[in-house]
């Protein structure tokens, strides 16, 4: 008898739950912002299921297309309005001159969302390079532009980046520490002739003792395990190369500003072998896990809160990529390099001057007071990055969660399997679990 009564209730609850999660969304609306390259797509929840949404999210990257970002698909299913935006340097990092201007695009998005009837709360979603984007925006919105004009910044923001309306919360979603930090960690430090390359167009010359793909240094494909000594030398050499590049760029920028350089306004700054050399992608013992115990959403939806969270990422680097133009080269200008891809350091992992760049999640989260959720994908290599963001965040209301077996894009990591094993569905619920947690975190607060 009890079963007969509970059965329909269970079915009804299941129906309601399923209907909520899989409600039909209206088609996304294209939104044109200023300037022309700045644009967005607005996704509304099904009005039959969610007639009065009051929370909106805004996702934007630096140069990637976020107009069909996974959050724009998943948030409306859960009753939250989602705006995916692309900034003025979409599809072209060299046009980030400076990157700080992207905050003017975020501003337009926040203002648009606040103008929608019923919307009283706007949450920023900083995914990957959206992390520094949204941290910068919120920090300047809360503290004013003196923060981005501090003397130690390699690029200072212009005065017209002011009066940014703050958001009500920020979700860092597998964000990284900043594009400059990514750049220093991705540099191939074996290159020894950057002056020749940039001044005379020479081909790169390499110090084999710093070549990450040299077996004598410990390289062994997916089974690579470098010595502590090599790792230390490598990370310090990455910093030394980055500092050298910064010095060259600063000197040229001075000449440009003095009118003594060969081109006016800016100049090309093209760095070979500047990517595909991030040691943690080769030796997965580096940044393998969080330092402290943290919450982990398991595939079955339960949350484990006892232990350090480990990354299950695969070996994902092609040794040839570093030498290829499109994979390994950064095609920038002086201004975009100094604004987006430059940061001062002495050791690319442990001794970084985080506030030498505005493009620095770790610098900026120290100035954010609104609620922050940091979410890390364990099928990628930003788990420890996320923990650092969480640790540095000043907000009193902050939370950290890792999603078991999700890729950087949030989907199940089918490559995250023990060597030789085929994917067995063990991470199939990653997307649902993640966005259920995100929407619950939002709904509990706003």
């Amino acid at each position, binding site marked *: 008898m009890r079963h007969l009564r509970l059965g329909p209730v269970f079915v009804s609850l299941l129906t309601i739950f399923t209907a909520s999660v899989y409600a039909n969304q209206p088609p996304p609306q294209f939104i044109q912002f200023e300037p022309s390259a700045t644009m967005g797509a607005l996704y509304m929840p099904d009005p039959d299921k969610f007639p009065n949404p009051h929370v909106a999210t805004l996702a934007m990257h630096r140069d990637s297309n976020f107009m069909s970002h996974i959050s724009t698909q998943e948030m409306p299913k859960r009753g939250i309005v989602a705006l995916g935006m692309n900034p003025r340097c979409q599809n072209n990092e060299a046009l980030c001159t400076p990157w700080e201007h992207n905050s003017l695009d975020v501003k337009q998005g926040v203002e648009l969302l606040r103008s929608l009837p019923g919307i009283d709360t706007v949450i920023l979603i900083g995914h990957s390079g959206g992390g520094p984007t949204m941290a910068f925006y919120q920090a300047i919105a809360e503290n004013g532009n003196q923060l981005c004009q501090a003397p130690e910044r390699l690029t200072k923001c212009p005065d017209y980046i002011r009066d940014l309306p703050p958001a009500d919360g920020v979700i860092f979603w597998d964000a990284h520490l900043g594009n400059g930090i990514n750049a220093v960690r991705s540099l191939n430090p074996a290159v020894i002739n950057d002056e020749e390359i940039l001044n005379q167009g020479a081909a790169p010359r390499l110090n084999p003792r710093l070549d990450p793909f040299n077996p004598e240094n410990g390289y062994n494909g997916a089974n690579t395990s470098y010595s502590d000594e090599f790792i230390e030398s490598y990370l310090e050499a990455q910093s030394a190369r980055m500092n050298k590049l910064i010095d060259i760029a600063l000197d040229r920028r001075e000449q440009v500003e003095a009118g003594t350089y060969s081109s*006016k306004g800016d100049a090309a700054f093209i760095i070979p072998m500047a990517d595909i050399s991030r040691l943690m992608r080769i030796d997965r013992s580096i940044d393998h896990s969080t330092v402290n115990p943290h919450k982990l959403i398991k595939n079955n939806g339960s949350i484990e809160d006892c232990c350090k969270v480990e990354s299950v990422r695969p070996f994902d680097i092609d040794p040839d990529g570093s030498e290829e133009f499109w994979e390994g080269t950064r095609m920038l200008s002086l201004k975009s390099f100094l604004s987006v891809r430059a940061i001062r350091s002495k050791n690319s992992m442990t001794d970084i001057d985080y506030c030498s760049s505005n493009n620095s999640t770790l610098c900026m989260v120290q100035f954010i007071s609104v609620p922050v959720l940091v979410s890390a994908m364990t099928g990628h290599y930003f788990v420890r990055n996320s923990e650092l963001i969480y640790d540095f965040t000043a907000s009193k209301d902050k939370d950290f969660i890792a999603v078991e077996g999700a890729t950087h894009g949030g989907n199940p990591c089918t490559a995250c399997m023990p060597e030789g094993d085929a994917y067995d569905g063990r991470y199939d619920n990653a997307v649902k679990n993640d966005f259920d947690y995100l929407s619950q975190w939002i709904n509990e607060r706003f």
Partner: protein
Amino acid sequence: MKFQLIKLILVLVNLLLFVNLKADTPPPEFIQFSPSAAMGALYRPDPDVYPSPHIATLNMHRTANRLSHISMRNMAQRGFLILGMNPVCHNNEALCTPWENNALVVKQGIEYLRTIPGITKVILLGGSGGGPTMSFYQAVAENGVAFCQQTQKLTKCSDQLADLPAADGVVFRDAHLGNGANALRSLNPAVINDEEIMNDNAPPRFDPRLDPFNPDNGYNPDGVSDYSDDFKETYFRAQSERMNRLIDIAEGRLQQIQSGTYKYPDDDAFVIPNGDGSRLMRLDLNIDHSTLKPRKFLKNDGTIEDCCIVSSVRPVSLTPQSNQRFWSGTRMLTLRSFLSTRAIRSTHAMTEINYCSSNNSTVCNVQKISVPVLITAMGGHYFLRNSEIFYEAAASKDKDFIVLEGAVHGITPCEACVPGGYDGRYDNSVKNYYDYVAKWINERF
């Protein structure tokens, strides 16, 4: 009584016209294509006014954003569906590797539009750099990939471009001859050391006798320049020589890549200083000042004059700074994007261009198109003669050419075209233009 009836009919006609032009189009729908950078926005007519549209138009450029182009609202207001698309190298010409692959994005747009219930016709809109884009697409769709793999092409298209579905017509709006031809005519030919620049990162060195901004050569910093015939002839030949030199350097490097002897195995940066901002016709308005033959001219009052040679009313639009500044004067490309997008062979930048040495060539491509084409030129810009050239080259039996009075490249009224202050003389340019385009389409499809 009869007069009142006529008056009533006129009022009703006006009302209908007003309703049509002021129709409320639904919000544009964002469409994600593949790969991620390829995207579109679909604008539909007001369903209350146009319940059953059967014609869709598709607008795409090479790098510029077409998702909110002026044609979107204007075509939708006249009863057409319109899809604005951005291709893979949107906002970044260096990513056109090769440019020919943008055709795969146009293809997705056409296939998408043909799936929309009721749509039976798809018309391509090629504005400016959309001209070579759409002419290339249609020519390959009608003739197959053999056309874009001919031996003389600097870049040959891939076999992936087989089986493109053809469109039903093409409207060219102030299109140009091609991005290679534009690049050729915009090069500063005074640069004499491209090998040094490309090989050793040297700064450019100049021959002052070829400097377009040198008053000794005819440059007037305060107004319209008047170059001598001798200077122009030397200049245009020097532009071709510089372009050919750049092509030789790029091809040499690409051959090294193919033989495995280059420093990179796939591509390389190809940054050309003083590669833009030196188009002589922007300084000396006598160059390409008018059509060669009498052409139809759509005047501001909506009438069409069809008697005379049509002159451009464009203003001077170039300063030395635009050539010297990095972001306006430099082409930041790669070997592959340069050879595919910005390279063309010639011996004279104006009169002796090997149009079919590049796939990015409206003049070459329109010779292989059979569907109806409408070619429109803006009277306030410098592509008037360009449009006439590819009108003459177009193979379509059904082809039309019209010049819009006093419109800028983007169709709006050219206020700077009126010395002494704009007086409203071109205010109807947008309405006149889209009324004409809509009529041309509706008469045929």
